[in-house]
């Protein structure tokens, strides 16, 4: 018994679909952001798993570099998204995405 | 996330012109003042502590070091009390409870109860001020710890006793403050029971010479306390 690439891919697939569920069902903007983070984590796990266990060979670290870039991008995205959410809350006193539908006000 | 508060500048000195200079001046001030403060606290590592450890490492009882006007637990000298009830009336909290009656056999007034609830007392000193016979007064005792709540009520009259009929000048000398309490409750007792507080003892400065002055004022005390009470007690015609 040993752990191969397939195991990691299954975990990342489950993470991705849970993130998708969050994105579909949640109404709260912050909660949707959490779903995005789950999806991103699934993708990054894929990259690292492929870089280590894929066909490219263990000494090729491009996948890990991409994962690093991804982590940094996720952080940047979270910062901007949360700034927007705060501003949304100030304007509407709510972060429910079904209520905050006015374009002009 | 960067705060938009203006930089804190010490109000004592005029801030230098130019923000760059102020910036570096703040850094210099922070470092140099921290350096000064650290050196002061470090010098205290080599100093004898000023605090004296209470209660077992001081060379005389704390009660003797307290100021003259200290208001401790109340105490009554029943030999001087005329049961005028002035103290009971003036007490804002009603912590003094006095009862008296006429003895049908002898026809004399007898006091049957003189209770002071020290749990209730707020040490305002009104009762001590109204007492014309120097019977009720604050002592310097403050360690009024008791083990049960009912011990907080001090019973100064154990069994009914005759009320004194003497004039203030003829009354026996006021017992030393605290000596009655010490007899009533051992917990109030000092570790040096032979030393009784007197104002002159505190005024005497050197520590080794303390014992001599405590002993000497004892004969002087009656003169000191009797003379003023005889002089300025024209009104009270308490003699029954």
């Amino acid at each position, binding site marked *: 018994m040993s752990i191969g690439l*397939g195991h990691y891919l*299954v975990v990342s697939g489950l993470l991705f679909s849970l993130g998708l569920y969050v994105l579909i069902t949640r109404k709260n903007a912050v909660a949707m952001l959490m779903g995005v983070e789950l999806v991103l984590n699934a993708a990054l796990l894929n990259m*690292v798993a492929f870089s280590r266990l894929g066909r490219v060979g*263990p000494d090729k670290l491009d996948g*890990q570099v991409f994962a690093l870039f991804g982590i940094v991008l996720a*952080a*940047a995205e979270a910062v901007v998204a949360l700034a927007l959410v705060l501003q949304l*809350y100030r304007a509407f006193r709510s972060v429910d995405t079904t209520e905050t539908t006015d374009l002009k006000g | 996330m960067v705060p938009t508060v203006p930089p804190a500048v010490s109000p004592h000195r005029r801030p230098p012109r130019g923000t760059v200079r102020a910036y570096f001046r703040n850094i210099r001030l922070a470092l140099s003042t921290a350096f000064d403060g650290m050196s002061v606290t470090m010098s205290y590592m080599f100093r004898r502590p000023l605090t004296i450890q209470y209660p077992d490492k001081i060379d005389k009882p704390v009660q003797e070091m307290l100021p003259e006007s200290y208001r401790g637990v109340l105490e009554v000298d029943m030999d001087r009390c005329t049961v005028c009830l002035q103290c009971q009336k003036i007490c804002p909290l009603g912590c003094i409870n006095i009862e008296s009656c006429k003895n049908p056999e002898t026809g004399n007034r007898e006091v049957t109860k003189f209770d002071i609830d020290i749990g209730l007392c707020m040490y305002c000193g009104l009762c001590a001020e109204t007492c014309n016979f120097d019977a009720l007064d604050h002592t310097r005792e403050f360690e009024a710890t008791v083990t049960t709540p009912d011990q907080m009520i001090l019973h100064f009259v154990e069994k009914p006793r005759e009320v004194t009929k003497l004039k203030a000048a003829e009354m026996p000398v006021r017992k030393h403050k605290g000596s009655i309490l010490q007899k009533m409750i051992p917990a109030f007792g000092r570790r040096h029971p032979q030393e009784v507080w007197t104002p002159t003892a505190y005024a005497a400065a050197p520590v080794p010479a303390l014992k001599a002055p405590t002993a000497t004022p004892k004969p002087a005390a009656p003169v000191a306390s009797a003379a003023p009470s005889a002089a300025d007690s024209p009104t009270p015609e308490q003699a029954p």
Partner: protein
Amino acid sequence: MNGSIVQVVLFYLLAALALTGACLVAFSRSIVHSAFALLGTFVGVAGLYALLAADLVAIVQVMVYVGGVLILILFAVMLTARVDEGKESNPTVGKIPGLLAMLAMAGLLVVTAVKAFGPRTVISEANPPSTVSPIGNLLLSKYVLPFEAISVLLLAVLLGAVTIASGRMRKGAGGKQEGEAPR
């Protein structure tokens, strides 16, 4: 460590941690619980990275996600939580379609993964001694352009976030609000 048993046990433990966290995020009724459950996912995924001998990525994951993103999300949750929401602070819509979509996606991904890579378990034997300096070399040679682009992006994000968060969107309507204390 030698011995694949340790690796197998650790893998299942970490995968369970990550997936439990994700499930709590998805199904918890309180948004605060959801946010704290993200911690499990992030730490679990970081552990999986460490199991994949990607130590730098694992540490950066913990540092950036737990120390940065999670804290930001928690702050956002606490600043936008309402007192009157009570226990059910994270409402959901369309649970059934969501579940269906999730199951379909999960089935698709899992079947693909198992079919493509399940029987052929690739195990690389040689543990690279350190990934720190090779990754550093890669960042400054092959990927120097993305690296610089990312730094410019980070600067832009810094300025943009400050501008958006501190600016007024419209006058009079909201004004500056402080987050309510939770009940």
